């Protein structure tokens, strides 16, 4: 019979310890030392031994257990690095001018440049439109049947995808924005100067959900 104190804190079986080490290493933002592992695992656990088992388990897999200094981390196998290109994309927040231009096109499409300028109250720089075209969030629509036959802009499938919309018609109107509390009173009127929007980024891209409920 074990001592009462011991039996209460009996170490979990090694298989369980291995799972624990695996989970901790997976979720940690940094390599974890053996001491840290032991401190986080239940009393009596032996992280060093669990690591040996874990390392064996991941041998030849797409993921490896690697030692970094005195610490351990799980890393994708180096020979598969060529698959990781998607992870190297750097996301930046769109400038305010671009967001406003995009919003006007989305709400008023097909919209001419003159219309965008009239609504924004300032001229639209060539670069802003170019950027949106390059992102493939807008494209050219039909020319307007008005004098000068100006080109128009409309939003693309890619745009709908990015913003998780099924169609641009599903965007809420002004009245709906207001009643849903989305009309931001917090934006101070002083903010009306066009600025590079460098605050809060989040880089979170909404995934494509258009088909999430379809079978």
């Amino acid at each position: 019979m074990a001592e009462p104190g011991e039996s209460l804190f009996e170490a979990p079986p090694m298989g369980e310890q291995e799972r624990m080490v695996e989970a901790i290493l997976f979720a940690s933002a940094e390599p974890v030392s053996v001491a840290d592992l032991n401190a986080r695992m239940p009393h009596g656990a032996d992280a060093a031994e669990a690591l040996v088992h874990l390392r064996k388990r991941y041998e030849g897999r797409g993921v490896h257990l690697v030692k970094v200094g005195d610490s351990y981390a799980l890393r994708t196998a180096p020979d598969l690095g060529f698959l990781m290109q998607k992870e190297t994309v750097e996301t930046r927040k769109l400038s305010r001018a671009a967001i406003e231009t995009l919003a006007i096109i989305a709400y008023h499409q097909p919209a001419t440049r003159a219309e965008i300028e009239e609504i924004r109250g300032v001229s639209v720089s060539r670069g802003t439109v170019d950027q949106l075209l390059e992102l493939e969030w807008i494209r050219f629509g039909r020319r307007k049947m008005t004098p000068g036959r100006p080109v128009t802009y409309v939003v693309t499938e890619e745009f709908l995808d990015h913003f998780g919309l099924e169609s641009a018609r599903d965007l809420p109107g002004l009245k709906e924005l207001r009643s849903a509390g989305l009309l931001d009173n917090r934006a101070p009127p002083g903010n009306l100067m066009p600025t590079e929007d460098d605050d809060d980024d989040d880089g979170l891209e909404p995934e494509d959900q258009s088909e999430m409920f379809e079978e």
Partner: protein
Amino acid sequence: MAEPNAFENVTSVDARRAAEALIVDVDGYEGPLDLLLTLSRTQKVDLRAISILALAEQYLSFIDQAKSLRIELAADYLVMAAWLAFLKSRLLLPPEPGEDGPSGEELAAHLAFQLERLAAMRESAAQLMARDQKGRDFFVRGIPEDVTRTRRVTYTATLLDLMQGYARIRTKDEFRPFVMDRDRILTMEQALDRMRPLIGFAGDWTDLSSYLPEGWESDPALRRSATASTFAASLELAKEGKIELRQSETYAPIQIRRRSDG
């Protein structure tokens, strides 16, 4: 605390406590339906077997109590009370021949449905929140891999950014007087600032129009604004005793001159 006085009327204490509980609780309810649901729990039966008539009475007496305690009740509570009183009469009195509209039973059944549905949604919400949650019970990869091989910059924005951007543009008219027109008008303060250093040189009668800022004469809208504010500024300066004004006849040019003693 001393024990409560044994001779104190226990019922009245209970009644007072109950009344106090009401005061405290009425804020806690999220609308009449929530209150009804809470009251229905006191019937201690399955929601499907609930007596709507009894519930209507409970609600009405709750409202009466609240009124007698001078609790401010939001209008929707009173609307619900009126409706329940109507429902009660429908349930108690036989329908008048030729009367149209739904029967009391139909109305009661719908109310029961609403209560059951709200209760079910609350239960579901609780179940949902009790699930294992990301970032609390299970975790994502701590080091999203970062292979700096091909570097491509993409720009992103959220739907909220987009909608708020749009709302911002469409509502900026509300700020117009302060922001939009600023560069199209000359304020009296600006005109004063312009004139103060200039009048020192106006020893002789000079046309007021010569004080307009450069470039403002050509555009009629700008000229109008500048003329008005310059004139207002000159009145202000005259009041301060700095200048004199004169106009030989109606519509003739207005002229100003520095006061020699000013």
